[in-house]
């Protein structure tokens, strides 16, 4: 069981929860379980080819999974997964 922290912009797609406890042995399994539970999250996390989007980073504890084994990164019970999307802040466009 790992805790997944849901960032503010994505909470609207996860029943407004700020964290969700999810089963899984790897980051991939956990994200799969998470997006099966909250299907609207899927298109925000993955592109059409099913790859994690380039403006969404995932961390196991404080380490970026791009520098671990990406989706194959093992997750231990009690680990925290953070989903951290890019935010610009303020008004749009120029």
């Amino acid at each position, binding site marked *: 069981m790992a805790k997944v922290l849901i960032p503010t*912009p994505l909470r609207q797609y996860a029943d407004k929860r700020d964290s969700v406890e999810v089963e899984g042995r790897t980051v991939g399994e956990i994200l799969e379980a998470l997006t099966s539970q909250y299907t609207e999250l899927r298109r925000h996390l993955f592109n059409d080819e099913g790859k994690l989007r380039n403006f969404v980073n995932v*961390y196991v504890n*404080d*380490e970026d999974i791009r520098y671990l084994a990406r989706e194959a990164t093992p997750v231990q019970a009690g680990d925290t997964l*953070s989903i*951290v999307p*890019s935010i610009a*802040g*303020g008004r*749009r466009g120029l």
Partner: protein
Amino acid sequence: MASEVLAPPVSLSNEEILRYSRHLIMPEVAMEGQLKLKRAKVLLIGAGGLGAPLGMYLAAAGVGRIGLVDFDVVDATNLQRQVIHGTKDVGRKKLDSAAERMLDINPFLHIDKYETALTSENALEILRDYDVVVDGTDNFPTRYLVNDACVLLGKPNVYGSIFRFEGQATVFAYNGGPCYRCLYPEPPPPGLVPSCAEGGVLGVLPGTIGAIQATETVKLILGVGELLVGRLLLYDALAMRFRELKLRKNPDCPLCGENPTIRSLIDYHEFCGVPRQEGEAGPGVSEIEPMEVKAKMERGERFVLLDVREPHELQICSLPGATSIPLGELPRRVHELDTADEIITVCKMGQRSARAANFLRQAGFRKVKNMRGGTNRWAQTVDPTLPRY
């Protein structure tokens, strides 16, 4: 001394010594640090939510020269968070309003005003003269532009961003450290992430994040402490929790990696997929003015006015006869609508409703229009008693 030939011969007047007394008595700053601040040149991009605390604290701290880049005008909706501007400043240029406040705080400050949007054409020229760049902007194209210009010029980029109750801060491109592209190689496509104008922001939040940026800027100039380099600070105001994530330099970064492919500034609007002009609706979706919608109502025409704003926004104002389905619920509630009906989508500013209209169009609805400018434009052109927000 030989070093004084290189550095401008700066000293403090008795008035300045009194003003900076609480800095001067700390060994980490002292006279040497205060002179570093006075010699420092900081470029502050954006005089908005983040720029407000940044401008005021950097002015107060005694930074000698601050460049301000902004082309916006103070609006009443800014005052909830942009504390550098006051009620009397509504309608004034943010540059003038911010500069006046900063010079009131510290008349020893020199301000360079740049009344322009930062662009690929002017960025290198503007940034070149400064020691530190502070990103207080509010949109992805400018953020990537600031990042790229900083890396190309070798300037540190003190970064902060905010959304609703959440903020991020770090220092990019410091001494060859990671850059914004190492963190996020690409921006989200337009429309997937709401802006503060649509998503909202806690008024105090830019104060917290801007103050963190100001702290890092001052430390960077003084050369003291541990900078937020290689660390991404996350702040959640609702949980009142700070967290820190590792921020690594990406060896494959196209800008600052081992084999860079970006060697000059690019077209950031194209890179971010942001249209330069208005007109958010996709092919097949036409726009309609609030005035025309009003006229259709008066003629008794049959159509569905679909308000896609969130339920809490309906408490602020609503249009007569509107049907409410929040944008996020539209995919699973689309069966509540009839493809035979004419549908006019509405939100606060016309962007979310454009996305709703595009979605409906793709879902097989043929008679879909997007009301231009949303309820705010309705308030301006049809019914001035309707609140704008």
